[in-house]
């Protein structure tokens, strides 16, 4: 009799948890879909580009703000030539490129010296942000605006801070050294600063995978879908993250992430909040959250925006091992950023950021993977032991996978509203296939990895960057004959 009673209790508790998880997954997917829908309308409404006449005016105007591109570089011998070359060919009237060699152990520094004919510079690179000692400073012989700082290894945040110290411009852009920027990307990135120069403190752009695109002279000449399913899965993921989430959050000035690969910041604001944080591996997100914290707690008016048009093309991991490390690292970044600024959670003093953004990231981005993994486990175990009925399991998988597919395909459709889109009609079926297939295995694997990242973050385990195997852009895809 008592066993029967226990069985009934187990069933009830199990059903309660399972229903809770189904409800959670349904809500998270509906919120994602809502953000994608907002992205659809906001992209149409707020993301008009500059006309050629406007660009001409910006080129000629003495009031156009200068930009310092900061390129932290560590063991990037394969791609640094192409990416720095690309950055020196950007179409913008007033900018400089500052490459910070973070004690690379490979030939990064030699390649930079040879390729760009560098000589030792007397330029002072000291500034308000503390960094590891700078060994040497180089400048280019050619009349290009290139400065290379060779410093002791101190991590990405340390390198960026060294670059910010050396920068002479009011705006600083942080770009990964394995990335290529659209030639006219700076015009679009600077647009929010021209519209609202007093309040705008940071702007994020779009990042897309460059794998299998045609790259010529450091420029993406033809956008193509990759032959690798793994790269296409990531292409869909990037579309979902940028056009879905960030457009919606940006509309309400509560965006918490600006990608470390492509972000433009007001230099004085970054220095005022203390620069990039060394102690976290997600320094990009942490800086943005800290900026919200700093400005809101002082009741200062500010804006952090996202612009969809400018694209930074980056090489995405083609191996599962590296992808595993990257995703764990990203999750650790989220955990660190939210934990460091936990005071903001549901704190009305921080407005919509405290009442919506940070709780959203806490509940759905930080703990989401754990709940989803729990859902898969409970459902599978429940089915095996006959604790839950088949209809409930079917409902869980429909809500989880079905809505996930709709979310991904909607993001692919959103891409039609932006420039630099995949041009050929047959790209659509490829991307849609990736958007559907990623929900059968790939997403679940990522969820498990993210849950691992969450677990490591909660345990306070030391995070490591790990090495990314680069193939480089030059040999990746020659231009079609």
């Amino acid at each position, binding site marked *: 009799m008592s066993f029967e009673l226990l069985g009934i209790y187990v069933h009830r508790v199990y059903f309660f948890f399972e229903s809770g998880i189904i409800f959670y997954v349904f809500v998270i997917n*509906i919120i994602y*879909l*809502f953000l994608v*829908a*907002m992205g*659809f*309308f*906001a992209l149409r*409404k*707020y993301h*008009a580009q500059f*006309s050629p*006449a*406007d660009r*001409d*005016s*910006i*080129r*000629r*105007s*003495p*009031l*156009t703000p200068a930009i310092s591109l900061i390129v932290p570089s560590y063991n990037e011998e394969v791609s640094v030539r192409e990416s720095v070359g690309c950055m020196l060919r950007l179409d913008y009237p007033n900018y400089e490129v500052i490459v910070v060699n973070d004690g690379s152990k490979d030939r990064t520094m030699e390649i930079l010296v040879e390729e760009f004919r560098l000589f030792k510079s007397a330029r002072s690179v000291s500034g308000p942000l503390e960094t590891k000692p700078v060994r040497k400073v180089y400048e280019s012989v050619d009349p290009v605006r290139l400065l290379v700082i060779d410093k002791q290894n101190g991590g990405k945040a340390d390198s960026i801070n060294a670059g910010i110290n050396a920068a002479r411009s009011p705006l600083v852009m942080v770009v990964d050294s394995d990335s290529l920027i659209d030639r006219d990307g700076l015009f679009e990135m600077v647009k929010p600063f*021209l*519209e609202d*120069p*007093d309040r705008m403190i940071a702007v994020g752009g779009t990042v897309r995978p460059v794998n299998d695109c045609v790259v010529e002279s450091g420029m993406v000449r033809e956008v193509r879908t990759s032959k690798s399913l793994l790269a296409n899965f990531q292409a869909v993921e990037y579309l979902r993250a940028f056009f879905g989430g960030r457009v919606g959050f940006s*509309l*309400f000035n509560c965006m918490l992430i600006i990608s470390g690969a492509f972000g433009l910041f007001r230099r004085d604001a970054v220095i005022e909040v203390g620069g990039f944080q060394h102690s976290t591996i997600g320094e990009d997100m942490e800086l943005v959250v800290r900026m919200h914290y700093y400005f809101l707690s002082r009741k200062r008016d500010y804006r952090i925006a996202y612009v969809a048009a400018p694209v930074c093309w980056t090489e995405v991991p083609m191996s599962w091992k590296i992808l595993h490390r990257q995703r764990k690292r990203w999750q650790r970044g989220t955990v660190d950023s939210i934990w460091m600024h936990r005071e903001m959670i549901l704190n009305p003093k921080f407005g919509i950021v405290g009442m919506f953004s940070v709780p959203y990231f806490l509940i759905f981005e930080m703990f989401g993977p754990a709940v989803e993994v729990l859902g898969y486990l409970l459902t599978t175990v429940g089915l095996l032991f006959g604790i839950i*009925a088949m*209809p*409930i399991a*079917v*409902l869980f998988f*429909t*809500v989880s996978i*079905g*809505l996930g*597919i*709709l979310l991904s*395909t*909607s993001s*692919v*459709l959103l891409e*039609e509203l932006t420039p630099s889109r*995949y*041009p*050929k*009609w047959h*790209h*659509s*079926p490829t*991307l*849609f296939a990736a958007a*559907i297939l990623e929900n059968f295995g790939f997403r679940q694997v990522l969820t498990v990895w993210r849950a691992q990242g969450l677990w490591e973050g909660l345990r306070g385990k030391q995070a490591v960057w790990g090495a990314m195997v680069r193939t480089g852009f030059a040999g990746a895809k020659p231009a079609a*004959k």
Partner: protein
Amino acid sequence: MKVREMFQSVRAWDFGRMVVLLQSAALISSLIVPSWALHTYHFSKSLPGPISVALSFLAVIIAMVVAQLYVSCVLKYRTTVRERRANRAKTQITHLLAEYLSGETRTAALSLAYRERRDDFAACATQALLVVKGDSRARMRGLIREIGLYSYWIEGLAKRDEAQRKRSVDLLGLLESQDCQPIFERALAQDPSPFVQAAAIRALLRFSGATCRQNLLDAIEERPFLVRLFAAAETGGYPAIETAQQPPPAAVSEQLLLFDRALRENDRQTAFQMLDQLIAEGDARLAAISAEALGAWIAAPLRGEAVAA
């Protein structure tokens, strides 16, 4: 005034955000409502509750994904076809415009082209306005008024869409006509968008007299930064005022047109001659642009690309 400003800011930003929220809610309800209807009126009659809900969602999701795929393919295909057609049409319209500007009567053909492909015509007319000067410019202005493009641009000023209003101001600015001065002044004073204001001040500074320029620049401190930035571009150094720019001689515009035509007709010899004359005329900027175009035109077949004039 404050109430009006408040209303303008609400209309431009907060109201806009609310609209986006409502639109998004409507879009999401297009997923939820049909699923609920399918569950309530169809599947629940023969299936257990959870299966019915799951099937309803699945049916709607499949329908939406198929629709999205169709829309995505069609949009890409249509864009490709439109671009191809637009390129063809623009070539024809440019030829017609070149003939018209060289003195031939092509008004009927141009009117027809305008009626059939208004946007392509507007793009070609804009290109022509950017390069031609002197008599050719006057002729171009007359044509734009005669066929109705001027009225089309004026209509654009009243649109709710900021980008459309700005484009109208930009294009009217290219006419450099004194008649448009009140239009630009109104846009500068009344339009809530800094982009439209910036386009208006650019247009005003390009053709207005020294006194007007001085008045504009005196009052510019109160304007948004973007407006000041565009004004500085026109004056070559804010807040200094330069003397009005002299338009290039009419001969240059004729050479440019002939150069353009020579490229289109694969007449390399004439293209080189015109380039020589452009350099001789001393307009370094135009000569550089033309030389670049000629270089690209010569290099294209060597790279195996189609020749694009």
